[in-house]
């Protein structure tokens, strides 16, 4: 029986309890690779492609298209052809959905609040019992820790994961001193202190990428590696239509237009994502915080930070991941970087490869951290 691997309904984010299997993208009998897009799944919050968590021969599609199933429910069965149909039948018949209690006991994400440097910081933590070098995830402009919902659980399998809400964002305090990179980096440094680890791996998306490199500049002794996902700080331009559109948007339609620039498939922008952004922007001080951060770091379609010199110094392992269809920051920014920087280009992803090609990004990150840990 150990040759039989179940593929189950994933849990995308703290709130997800069930999902609808909208369609299968593979047929029974297919050979599938880990990370291959095998189905489309929709939750009350979002719709996305589901990447296979394992490789093997797809022997059975258990879930029917259109079925609404709880997290952990059996979707399909992988097994070599040597396993008999009868064994697969009995595996399917005997499959038990693991209750949420099991996940909670074993390091499921928790949300915590810190008061540091006069600020309220909120972060999600997962796998915190693990003693490996932790990873700190830093979202981009206008985002929050939920941007990492396809990454937190996967990365937490091998190390503690901390996902911060930057100052002015998510559930963290909205009051900023200036909104410059040093202020954002100081907040992340406060969280690094909280991890209790001497060093951490930093993963930063977009403006959060610039924050990660700023920490490398300000506190190099605390950094084991930096992975930038479409990071700010390697080019001089940014799509002002997005930055200004996102700040100005008050109505659903305008938020949708701005969010669609982030993804290569605009259909993925759901009503719940739009309402989530509006909920953030309605909070007193949020718009002012966005304005201040944009004015300091992304004024009039320009980027003020540059970390090209910093990565030349080759202080720690650096990886840069970019979507080939990024409409916010050009992937050409990686041109001319030193050979020590590992560049990963995901052709079909837009500005959010950690969401659009989560499986590929997760496995690249996991391998990168392991290599960095050995140094």
């Amino acid at each position: 029986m150990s040759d039989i691997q179940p593929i189950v309904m994933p849990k995308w984010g703290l709130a997800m309890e069930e999902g609808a299997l909208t369609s299968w993208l593979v047929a029974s009998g297919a050979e599938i690779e880990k990370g291959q897009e095998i189905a489309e799944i929709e939750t009350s919050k979002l719709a996305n492609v589901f990447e296979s968590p394992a490789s093997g021969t797809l022997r059975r599609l258990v879930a029917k298209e259109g079925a609404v199933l709880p997290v952990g429910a059996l979707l399909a069965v992988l097994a070599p052809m040597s396993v008999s149909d009868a064994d697969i039948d009995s595996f399917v018949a005997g499959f038990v959905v693991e209750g949420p209690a099991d996940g909670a006991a074993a390091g499921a994400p928790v949300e915590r609040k810190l008061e540091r440097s006069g600020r309220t910081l909120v972060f999600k933590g997962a796998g915190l019992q693990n003693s490996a070098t932790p990873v700190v995830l830093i979202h981009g402009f206008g985002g929050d820790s939920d941007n990492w919902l396809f990454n937190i659980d996967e990365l937490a399998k091998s190390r503690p994961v901390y996902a911060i809400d930057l100052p002015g964002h998510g559930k963290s305090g909205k009051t900023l001193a200036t909104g410059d990179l040093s202020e954002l980096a100081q907040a992340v440094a406060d969280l690094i202190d909280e991890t209790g680890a001497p060093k951490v791996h930093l993963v930063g998306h977009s403006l959060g990428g610039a924050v990660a490199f700023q920490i490398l500049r300000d506190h190099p002794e605390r950094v084991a590696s930096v992975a930038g996902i479409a990071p700010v700080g390697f080019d001089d331009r940014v799509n002002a239509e997005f930055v200004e559109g996102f700040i100005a948007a008050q109505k659903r339609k305008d938020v949708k237009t701005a969010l669609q620039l982030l993804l290569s498939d605009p259909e993925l922008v759901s009503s719940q994502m739009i309402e989530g952004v509006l909920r953030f922007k309605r909070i007193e001080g949020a718009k002012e915080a966005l304005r201040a951060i944009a004015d300091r770091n992304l004024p009039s379609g320009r980027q003020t930070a540059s970390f090209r010199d910093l990565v030349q110094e080759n202080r720690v392992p650096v990886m840069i991941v970019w979507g080939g269809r990024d409409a916010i920051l050009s992937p050409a920014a990686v041109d001319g970087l030193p050979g020590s920087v590992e560049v990963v280009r995901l052709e079909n992803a837009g500005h959010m490869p950690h969401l659009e090609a989560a499986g590929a990004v997760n496995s690249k990150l996991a391998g990168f951290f392991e290599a960095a840990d050995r140094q």
Partner: protein
Amino acid sequence: MSKKSYREAIREAIAGEMRRDPRVIVIGEDVSGGTGAPGEQDAWGGPLGVTKGLYPEFGAERVLDTPISEGAFIGAAAGAAATGLRPVAELMFVDFMGVCFDQIFNQAAKFRYMFGGKAVTPLVIRTMYGAGFRAASQHSQCLYPLFTHIPGLKVVLPSSPYEAKGLLIQAIRDDDPVIFFEHKVMYDDTADVPDESYTIPFGEANITREGKDATIVAFGRMVNFANQAADDLKREGVSATVIDPRTTSPLDTETILDSVSETGRLVVVDEAHPRCSMAADIARLVAEEAFGDLKAPIKTVTAPHTPVPFSAALEDIYVPSPARIRDAVLTIARGRA
């Protein structure tokens, strides 16, 4: 952020605005309770405890208990609003509004217009509505269509604790009279509500479910029933969009018409009686503006044209249910193209 009840969300909105703006006052029957009886202030905090805790913090000058005289204190609140305060009046049950229609319909609603736009009337009237509380026909009505009918009033129907806090802060900061409808069986509903202050603009609908086969427009408590129906329908292979207009006046007609142009089917869910209701109003809107988009007749799910029954068994049948909403959608979505 933490889980808060509808009741706590409303209280947090009022208390936050009272701290922010000294012109905000609370006035109504039993909003403190026991005034004049030593040691019993803050005994009640409104009939269902919503304003409990305001009296000890803000005192008798800003939390005013009134006699049982709706006409008098609603009139006083309208006058106070016209002369510089921002009163939040509580009129226990919307069923009692009849005795203050002149103060609301003919005075507060008309001030801005009659004084050539020079007068503002930042008045909020909070009131309980809705059936399901075993409170019989004189304490269970859904009279928001009456107020929606009157130009000059804004009418708000929060469908969750999150909505209640943001819409009430918006109402208190608004310079026009706002009638704020709280469904009395929802006070113990809980949801994530930010600790910070936030406002939800009037006239902008929320989309709580997305689907392609039908549009369900629902108000107040019915939004939750419509969401349940949409979730059930999904299991049967029918996907429905659910729209919560949040306010009946102003009304976000654009979101409704855009959705109907995508789905071609409309079900309106309204806990009020069917005649001259929001159900009738939205059906009129779509029939007039989007007839060419419709692939099936418009359906409405409402209470019947009868008083709310006191019999528990009859009251349960009286209120629209998720099952009735589901059936209405299936009636027009079956055999869909």
